[in-house]
């Protein structure tokens, strides 16, 4: 962890909201000090640097940020390999067992609360794992990557901050705990609700009313314009002075923009390419 945070600290004018000095932020990994840089640094700046480093290490050791951060060791950056040929069979066995347990749990009133929903969640996840396994097998990707890059694909046990790792669809079965909703839950719009199904329903509805939208716009525009025209003609206004006459022309400026927008909107909807394939 310390190695990750090593490197020279620039003199920073940062301060906390209460005015007390804060340690400078971490330097990016690419800006770490090289031996050549060390040679070029004056003794005075080295002393200052060492003192700052001591101060920083002291800060690191203080329980300021909670538990230590996991290191970025090479084992952290695992790569995908070919799935085991027996994986599917094992998944099927596990799924059958989970389904059996869920069925038995429904008959037994003595089963601890939550076990049944947990078993259903397991069953659901196993089903997904089978589907993803099939997907991985159909995709032939070469495994060539630049060195030094940490591929942060989280493992099944890596933490997801402040939120339960539960599929929203599964959570319809599992009991909901509002206290797990994360820090200061928003009044509306939780990201767990943003599913492909909901998206497809939205864009499909938009597609389905495309013609009504188009013709409705034309009809309403024509109707309003006709009324305005009627009122104007009926008023029998005199021809205005020329400087006054240019004022209404300002209304005409955005007409091409709106016309292009109307045409573009319907062109996108007509192409009908917004829906996504569902699971």
């Amino acid at each position, binding site marked *: 962890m310390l190695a990750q945070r090593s490197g020279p600290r*620039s003199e920073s*004018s*940062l301060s*906390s909201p209460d005015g007390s000095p804060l340690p400078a*932020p*971490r330097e990016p990994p*690419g800006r770490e000090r090289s031996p050549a840089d060390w040679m070029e640094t004056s003794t005075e700046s080295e002393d200052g640097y060492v003192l700052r480093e001591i101060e920083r290490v002291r800060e690191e050791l203080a329980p300021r*940020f909670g538990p230590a951060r996991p290191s970025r060791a090479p084992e952290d950056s695992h790569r*995908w390999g070919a799935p085991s040929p027996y994986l599917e069979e094992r998944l099927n066995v596990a799924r059958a067992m989970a389904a059996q347990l869920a069925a038995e749990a429904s008959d037994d009133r003595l089963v601890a609360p939550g076990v049944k929903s947990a078993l259903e969640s397991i069953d659901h996840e196993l089903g997904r794992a089978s*589907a993803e396994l099939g997907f991985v097998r159909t995709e032939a*990707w*070469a495994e060539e990557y*630049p060195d030094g890059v940490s*591929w*942060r694909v*989280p493992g099944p046990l*890596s*933490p*997801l*901050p402040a939120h339960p790792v539960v*599929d929203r669809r599964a959570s319809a079965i599992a009991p909901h705990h509002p206290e797990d909703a994360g820090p*200061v839950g*928003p*009044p*509306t*719009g939780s*990201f*767990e*609700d*943003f*599913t*492909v199904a*909901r998206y*497809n329903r*939205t864009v499909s509805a*938009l597609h389905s009313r495309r013609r009504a*939208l188009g013709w409705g*716009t034309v009809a*309403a*525009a024509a109707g*309003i*314009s*006709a009324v*305005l*025209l009627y009122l104007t003609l009926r008023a029998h*206004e005199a021809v*205005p002075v020329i400087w*006054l006459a240019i*004022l*209404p022309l300002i209304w*005409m400026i*955005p007409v*091409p*923009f*709106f016309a*292009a927008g109307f045409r*573009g*909107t319907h062109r996108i909807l007509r192409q009908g390419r917004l829906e*996504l*394939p569902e699971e």
Partner: protein
Amino acid sequence: MKRPTVIFQVTAIGKNARALDATARSVLFWLRNTPRIGFRYLLWLVVEPEGYWSAPEVYDRLERAGARVMVVPPAYQTPLGTRGKARALQYACDERRRLGLSVPWVWVYHQDEETCVGEDTLAGISDFIRSGEALVGAGIILYPIDWMGTPSHVQELTRSFDDLRVLDSMTLPGNPTAGFHGSHFLVRADVEDSVGWDSEGYAPTEDLMFEIRVRARYGSVFGVLRGFAYEKGAFSLRDQLRQRRRWMHGVLHAVLHCHELPLRRRLTVAYSGLSWFSALPSVVILVASIELRYGPLLDVTSLFTGFIWVSMILAYIEGFRLHSKYLERSVSLPRFFVNGVVGALIDVVAPWDALITRPSLGDFIPKDYPAAPSARSPKRSTAGESAY
């Protein structure tokens, strides 16, 4: 064929820590729960030092969960000395080059600190990369998060329906109505890094400059990114005004200072700005028509007035319908109408406000709900502080 990698890059000052936390968690959550996404991922949080120090525990927690927190060093400078968000974006470009990630199989999905993703977003990204039809993709943004039905929130609904116009324009040669996004867009890393974000001084709308440069260098390589992104609107009318003002500053900056803008494109961008400017005089003239008599001229203009009115009203109705499956809070029709009018008036005034103000790096827009007291009164710009 190499397995693609998507870098989910959140670029922000970082002071809206709760919003950014939710954004990062949405990425992590849906990466685990979206089946059949055909890419690896990296989650980068590119923030300014003051943002990091506003909530270090949040960033450390996210880092433990798999995100990589990149604090832009205060001393970092680009060759042309750009400032603001473009500087942070350029820093991320430099990091990608250093790590060997500026390659055709790496893609960058750009997010603001309040750009949450859903299952559909990830499925759309996967689909876009798989299709290989374009190098840059942008999609529709909804604003359901923390939606309260305030005037600025009602006004935001219209942007989602307008995104259909944006997508069409963006995919056409020349982008005739100047459509693009600063978030919810996907770009191939080598394309982004070859174009970069560096420009002289402060570019208020760095996304517009980026789109101009990509188009100038690669041509019409833009496609539609399916799937929504989910954001939140400005909480107050003042914030809405500052946001829109910044957009107009960006348009003016592009028209007046962007040397890479071809003449034809410069005219279309200028016309888009002019259309927006015309809104306020139109309202004034409409009110004045009660007293002044324009006479037979209205015979001509009234033919088009109906079309413009209907188009504007339709944006509210369809914008609301797009959001209807996501909003848990509803407002009465009269309130919706009044708030819509108030929100529209702010949009009408904003470009003119841009004429009498200067682009400011200190335009920090709170996105955390409820807004933190410190966020309401941000300090004046320091070296690293910027308007995002």
